[in-house]
Each structure stands twice: as C-alpha cells, then as structure tokens.
C-alpha cells in the first residue's frame, strides 16, 4: 500500500507515528503537505520559505507526536494549522527585520500571458495590500477565506473567541474594500 492510499484517519496515523511507524508518517505527509504549504505560502509569500516551514513542522511532529493530544478535542488539522501558521508568521517577522531578504518571489511567475498588464498590475497591487494587513487580520482572512475553514475552526486555530475572529475578518475586508475603491478612484482620476 502506498502512503497516498493509506485510508486511516489522521488520529489513527498520529497514534501509529507515536509508535514509530514510518509509513504512517509518510501517509500523513502525503495527505497534508500541499494544504499546509498553501497556508505557509500565503503567510510568508515565498515558495522556499513556505516549503521550509512545512518541512520543519512535519519533522517536529515526527520527533514529538505527543504534542498533539486528541483528548483536548481539536482535530489534527486544526492543531497543525496552528503549528504551521505560528512558524510562518515568526519567519515573516524575522524577514521583516531584514527587508532585503523579504522581497523574494512575491512577484512570482504565475502571471500568464493571457493576463492583461492592467489586471496583472491590479492583482499584484492587491496582493501587496493583503500582505500589508496586520498579522492577525491577515491570518483570519487566510484561514477563513482562502483555506475555507469555518469561523469556529479558524477561531480555534488562532486561539481567540468567535467574536474576535469575526471582528478581525470584518476589519480586513473593510480595509481591502477601501483600498480597492481608492485604487479605482485614482485610476479614474488619472484617466479624467
């Protein structure tokens, strides 16, 4: 059985990992590495950093699987979202202290030829605005909007109450809406 075909639940795989079963670890990595890579990428903005964050988080899990305790009631994924987002944000803070290292591949190679210069410019500008959001607002937005976690799960990942999460989400979206409006006004003013 290949690691991708392992049908055991995350909790069962974690129990097997605690017993030192390497194939269970491989199955868990295969199942979840991309999901957590996307999260790390959205928080760090750099492909390499995101890969490193996810790799280190999984190695930490392998060394100390008891750090996730199902008796506490959270799903494995909820707990691991917490581990990965903490690592990613901490790396981002370090990068912010060394701005020359933080530029990286935020402007990546995904802009296809079909994308007009305007749309591309607008998207990159908006990505810059999302990255400029305060850390907690950005994390709330990434978890709820991009990772599509329920508000309840996202609040649990962030270790805050549901009302606080909703307030962060509202502030993030309001800021971005205002940013887009001013962008459009500026563009309209430039034309006029």
């Amino acid at each position, binding site marked *: 059985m290949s*690691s991708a075909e392992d049908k055991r639940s995350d909790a069962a795989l974690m129990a097997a990992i605690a017993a*030192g079963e390497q194939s269970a*670890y*491989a199955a868990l*990595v*295969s199942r979840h*590495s*991309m999901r957590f*890579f*996307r999260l790390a*990428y*959205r928080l760090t903005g750099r*492909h390499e950093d*995101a*890969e490193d964050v*996810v*790799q280190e988080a*999984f*190695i930490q899990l*392998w*060394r100390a699987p008891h750090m996730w305790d199902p008796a506490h009631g959270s799903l494995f994924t909820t707990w691991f979202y917490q581990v990965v987002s903490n690592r990613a944000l901490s790396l981002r803070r370090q990068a912010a202290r060394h701005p020359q290292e933080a530029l990286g591949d935020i402007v*990546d*190679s*995904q802009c296809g030829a079909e994308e007009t210069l305007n749309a591309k410019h*607008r*998207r990159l500008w*908006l*990505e810059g605005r*999302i990255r400029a959001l305060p850390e907690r607002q950005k994390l709330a*937005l*990434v978890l*709820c*909007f*991009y990772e599509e976690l329920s*508000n309840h799960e996202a609040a649990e990942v962030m270790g805050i109450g549901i009302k606080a999460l*909703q307030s962060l*989400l*509202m502030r993030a*979206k*309001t800021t*971005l*809406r205002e940013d*887009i409006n001013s962008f459009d006004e500026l563009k309209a003013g430039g034309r006029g």
Partner: protein
Amino acid sequence: MRKQMLEDLLMVHGTNPQNWPADMRASMETCLKSSPRFAADYAALARLEGELKSCLRAPAAPALAARIIAATPPLQRTYLPPQGLSGQERALLAACLTGALVIGAGIGYFIGGGTVDDSLSRLATAALYGGRALI
C-alpha cells in the same frame, strides 16, 4: 434587517449563502431580494471576493512530500522508565533489573568455565542476555 447588519453578516460569512448561519439565511435572502440597494452591495462584495480569490495563489510543489520524507531523520528514542509508577512499583522494577544482572553474571561465569579472568567481555555479554531475557 438593517443595511449595516446585512453588510456585517456578509463581511463575516461571505457571499456564498451556504456559509450563512442557518438561522439567518432566510431573512438575509429576503432582505437581498427586497432592495436593489442591498443587491448592489451584495454584488460589490462578491466582486471583492472574486478579486481576492485571484490573489495569493500558491504555486505547485509536487516534490514537497518526498522532500519532507527524505529530510526526516530516523527516530532516536531513548529508553525511559514508564511514567507514573508508585514507589513500590519502582522498587520492584529495580529489584527485577538487579536480579537479571546477577543471574546474567552467574551464567556468564559458568560459560566462562568458572574462571573470572577468562573473558570479562563474555561475562558482560551473558549478563546482558540474561538481563534482556528477564526484562
């Protein structure tokens, strides 16, 4: 429902009705149908969400899982006595281990033909085997 309340709910739960709270969904839908102004706000928010969705697309990382598995070091778990033993249980465990050592040393002594200076390493090996067998 007031405009501000509807707007707040849409901001928090998004424009997909499937994500709206079950107890609010019907009144939110009625509200949106009742006023073109509400519908326009909804459309503006849906546009914002569409634009946001086009951002922060993570690139593919097809070799990531293999890279992580390859980089993971083998386990080096050291033996630790079981946690939560009472004083009496600890004493029993210590007595068993000492007994195993003594029996192992005895076997080693006899294997060595009763000579102590024959081979200390043989004695140590036998002691180890004896200990492991008993544990």
